[in-house]
């Protein structure tokens, strides 16, 4: 596969599925959107030759984006900092749209979860089945079920506070 073909695929995937990557970026960082986004794009680019169409592009991208986001730490951000300061060209800009406050709250609650639970929550909200989640996460379906039950209970309980305070 030539570099040109690889870049074409990357551009097409980005055009069609960028929303998916945005969601992961938003759920995993409050500040360094650019850096995590860049890291995910690079990992996606690396993964293109290995894509065999056994999975859908969405599943493939979700897995790579989550893999990258989970391992993305403050340490890595620190290293990347110098590069960002040198090159103040922002990759992402907030879309100036009226965002549902409840969505902002939901992202806030997802962000409070640990890295693994964030992945499970994103996959759950995206409507992936237990079987798909189990394959993507590499753990058993029953383990996925246990995590989901706990996360759902937690989110519902917190939403009651949110409803009560009418934030």
């Amino acid at each position: 596969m030539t570099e040109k073909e690889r870049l074409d695929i990357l551009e097409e995937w980005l055009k069609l599925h960028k929303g998916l990557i945005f969601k992961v970026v938003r759920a995993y960082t409050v500040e360094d959107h650019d850096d995590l986004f860049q890291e995910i794009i690079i990992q996606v680019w690396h993964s293109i030759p290995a894509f065999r169409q056994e999975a859908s592009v969405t599943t493939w991208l979700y897995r790579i984006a989550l893999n990258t986001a989970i391992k993305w730490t403050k340490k890595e951000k620190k290293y990347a900092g110098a590069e960002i300061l040198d090159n103040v060209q922002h990759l992402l800009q907030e879309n100036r749209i009226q965002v549902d406050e409840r969505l902002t709250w939901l992202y806030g609650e997802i962000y409070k979860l640990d890295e693994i639970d964030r992945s499970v929550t994103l996959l759950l909200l995206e409507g992936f089945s237990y079987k798909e989640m189990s394959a993507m996460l590499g753990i058993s379906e029953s383990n996925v079920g246990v995590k989901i039950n706990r996360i759902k209970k937690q989110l519902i309980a917190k939403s009651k506070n949110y409803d009560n305070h009418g934030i």
Partner: protein
Amino acid sequence: MEFDEMKKIWDAQNNQPLYVIDEKALHNRVQSKMSTVLRLTNISEWSLIMTYLVAGGILIGLNPFKRGANIFLYLEAIWMFAVVVYFVVSHIRRIKASRQFDRSIHGDLNHTISLLSYQVRLSQIIRWNLLPMGAIMIFSGWEAGKLFRVSAVILVSYTLAFYVTSKGIRANKRRKRELQVLKEKLETGN
């Protein structure tokens, strides 16, 4: 709020992307990062292999032309070639092992943990390998009547290598511990 309602709120954002991408900036950043990230592990492995190979070659090549050829320098060169063989075998094993991990998040975490273990092991080998190499060099200096000078050079080199590798080893071990914690979180229901 019930979970189904949260799902509806979540789905509603699909029609309104959260961000706008600056395509040109993205292209520039990806291109510049690609060239560095892509070959980093390979470069460090091959530069080690080449360093030992060239240093061993120089010892073998120049020793016969020196007055009073030193047997310990030949021994040092042979040791260096043996280390090169070890590095090449480790490199091949690493490439083969990287194909064994599945493409799930669990598999990816395992792969990264194994890579970090490999890097820690490599740094430790570089560090401890200086001991036998230094010992042979000290014997060589002793035979050539330059024991004090050679010992001083070995001591400085070892201290330097110890300092440089320690930082890398500590950073990789810390990163490995963090990933192991993530792996445990993934494996347990908590």
